[in-house]
């Protein structure tokens, strides 16, 4: 065995070697030990917990959001960690690779964070305010519906059908959003209405 090599290598590490053996030789007290062998602080202490449901598939696993700040108390809440809810009967605290990383979906660098507008033929986005966006949409709906709503068909039957506009609704949103959307879309007479049920 080429023990020389080993000896030489360790010799060069004398600084570290000294520290260890001297500690040992001097008697290894609890305070010093704490410096050497501390466990990382538990990162969820003092977080605010909120019960939520995973946004991906329809197993609908219970999740707990851990945030810095309490939304209910009117504070800004910064999502820090998400974990499966062990009280949930379906997932019992477990999560799949998507659910386990769901925090980074909410914190994605490619979240949409401001209303943007792209002009005809444009090569770039322009910022637009919510007010401007809503005015533009309302005007576009009104003009197109007034121009294209079919009130009666060829036989004179009342049909109140608007075919030149369509709406795809989101299967990741709540029932409450869906119901709001349903009410608005149907009141306009829109028929090209769909969701992700098939794709």
């Amino acid at each position: 065995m080429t023990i020389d090599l080993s000896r030489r290598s360790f010799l060069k590490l004398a600084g570290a070697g000294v520290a260890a053996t001297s500690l040992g030789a001097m008697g290894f007290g609890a305070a010093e030990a704490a410096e050497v062998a501390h466990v990382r602080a538990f990162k969820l202490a003092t977080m605010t917990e909120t019960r939520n449901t995973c946004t991906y598939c329809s197993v609908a696993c219970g999740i707990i959001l851990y945030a810095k700040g309490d939304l209910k108390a009117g504070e800004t809440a910064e999502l820090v960690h998400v974990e499966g809810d062990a009280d949930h009967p379906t997932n019992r605290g477990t999560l799949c690779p998507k659910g386990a990383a769901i925090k980074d979906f909410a914190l994605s660098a490619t979240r949409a964070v401001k209303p943007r507008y792209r002009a005809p033929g444009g090569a770039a986005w322009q910022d637009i305010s919510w007010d401007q966006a809503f005015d533009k949409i309302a005007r576009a709906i009104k003009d197109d519906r007034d121009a294209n709503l079919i009130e009666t068909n060829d036989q004179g039957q009342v049909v109140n059908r608007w075919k030149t506009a369509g709406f795809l609704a989101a299967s990741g949103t709540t029932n409450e959003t869906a119901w709001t959307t349903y009410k608005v879309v149907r009141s306009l007479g829109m028929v090209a209405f769909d969701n992700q049920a098939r794709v």
Partner: protein
Amino acid sequence: MTNSWTDIKNTDLAIVMGGNAAEAHPCGFKWVTEAKAKRGAKLIVVDPRFTRTASVADYYAPIRPGSDIAFLMGVINWCIANGKVQWEYVKNYTNASFLVKEGFGWSDGLFNGYDAEKRVYDTADWDYQLGEDGFALTDPTLSDPRCVWALLKDHVAIYTPDFVENTCGTPKDRFLKICEMIGECAAPDRVMTSMYALGWTQHSKGAQNIRGMAMLQLILGNIGLRGGGVNALRGHSNIQGLTDLGLMSNLIPGYLNIPVDKEVDFETYMSTRGNAPLRPNQTSYWQNYRKFIVSFLKAMWGDAATAENDWAYHYLPKLDVPSYDILRTFEMMAKGEVNLYFCQGFNPLLSFPNRAKLTEALSKLKLLVVMDPLQTETAHFWENHGVFNDVDPAAIQTEVLELPTTCFAEDEGALVNSGRWLQWHWAGATPPGQARRDCWIMANIFLRLRDLYRVEGGKFPDPILNLTWDYADPYEPSPEELAKEMNGRALAPLYDATDPTKLVLDAGKQLKNFSQLKDDGSTMCGCWIFSGCWTEEGNMMARRDNTDPDDTGAYLNWAFAWPLNRRILYNRASADIHGKAWDPTRKLIEWDGAKWAGYDVPDIGVTSKPEDVMPFIMTNEGVGKLFARKGLKDGPFPTHMEPFESPIDNPLNAAIRGNPVARVFPDDLAQMATSAEFPLVGTSYRLTEHFHYWTKHNKVNAALQPEFFVEISEELAAEKGIAKGGQVRIWSKRGQIWAKAVVTKRIKPMICAGKTVHVVGMPIHWGFMGAAQKGFGPNSLTPFVGDANIETPEFKAFLCNIEPVEKGPLA
């Protein structure tokens, strides 16, 4: 799902076919592993690929994409031939004994009444023989040659193990072993569960795939039982809810439907929705349709919906075609017939077939509005991303608005899971930047539009001006207000039907459930099946008691399940004709001589006598339908059909291409290939590391599965000279894509009709936005055709070709 995720632990045999539960629904699949560990249950996987689900299966068999009907009819044929039938169940709880009209028949792959010109069947004879009393005739001995059972036996006789092997590519010994395993579940104390997903729906005959399994489960007596059922594993967190709420072209919340042109007034509309029972004593619950629709119209238009104006029935749009589904809409868009399009949390550029056509269609819009938490490919469809999105922005005149919305962590409300549980969740994080709730966005659009109509007038403004919008903050309706609206409330005092002096519910109070609905305008209810979710006792969807007496898996006090908090549909069928559980260890509800009671909310009138009232209360017959009377456009029984693009001819009739009654637009038909030009079978699917086109925006999931790839067999790789990890080009008649090659033993060539069939597997998760490597999806290749009944695109079986490339565009 007829059952729930947690109920799967009660099964003896799980069959995963037309899905990949371990990969797409890992935490739900947990309950299969639980059943295996605790009950010694077995798991069968039938799939073109040896999937991650297959990796923990007891038995696996390969199948050629798009041949599931042949397999399932083959299993039914084997069960009938080998006496693996739950006879008491079949005789009492299915329409096996019903007599069918003489005109009904099948030959050469087609049912009677086919009109090749119009691509439709005349379904008039797909019906029962009726007696003078209006009830269907039956032969309880099942000996009449016109009884459903006799017709079924005839119908499946052609699906022999040899036929299955030849058509599906499934080795005969593997098929027979699976038949034996399934056949054991015909015993009253053995139960199989079926778990399927888009592997069955995304075909031009998807509905028939599922019917095939539903029929098998009826024959085995496995529907309504713990550990049984036909379980659709829905893909998105609230796709069940959005379907329940009718966010589809032809639906009204609670599976009511939008009228058609010829239903000129409310009574005409109702005349075909009477739903009279077809057998004595049967419930035929849809007889209550009028209560549901009137209460819905009251929810929509309040005081403007009156008995005098047909409850504002004329406010509803009428359909001149079966539906303006996504395929029809993009066809219209590509022809320049659509001006405005809204995408709320939906990325059609990657979700729908034939991407070149999608880009062309979006380019013809005047305005595209995208509301999404993410920057989607659809919102950016006009941006040039080299080969990954090769467009010329200057040539695209579409205006686009990208509106940032909240995501799950920042919003409150309920989602409906696959097992129909409505679960409430709370917001726990501040939205980034200017992101806002979808409700706020929809409210703002609506209120501005209503103002325009108020100020300017315009075409038929009534449904807009009169839409109920009585929220405390009209610009931001609260989840509580909206949920209460869906549950419904009394608009006038409600009195007991048997004792008019007895007040049941005061005006303004939340309904207890849909049994309190009225058809006289005295109740309102946004979605009748959700009724019971937010009552005077509060928010039932927020309940969090996870106790489960006797570990049945029901969890009745956890959240709320529609309908009526019932956890297993058709649960009355878990008991025999006298109301005793088929299997005492699987007791669900039983008849105690006076009423039904047990672990679940009975799916039957609680005092309905067991010998009189049959379990399938939503059907006119009261029983499960082996023969779907007029229900489906493509036949009362499933018959084998090839995909529109198939490597072999239909063995029943070479002249039939795809589903003979599926709608195909002429330009799309011209873009369909033959196997001479494109010999390989492409199929699309999810991977466990990703959720659709969302998680590629997440750096963690992007790291776990970074780049688009396709999977091919070692044999095909050798034939084409493709190296593991090398770049390949895959092309169909509609487009081309590049991918990395995963060469695997998990896909094997199959022999079908004497031909070697190679499968190219293509995951769906990549695009040109987000944190992952830029890539492609199979939708650049897939054909623009859908299921004959519900237009689900045929993503799971199409033709393509593949070649290695020296220097491809990928990272």
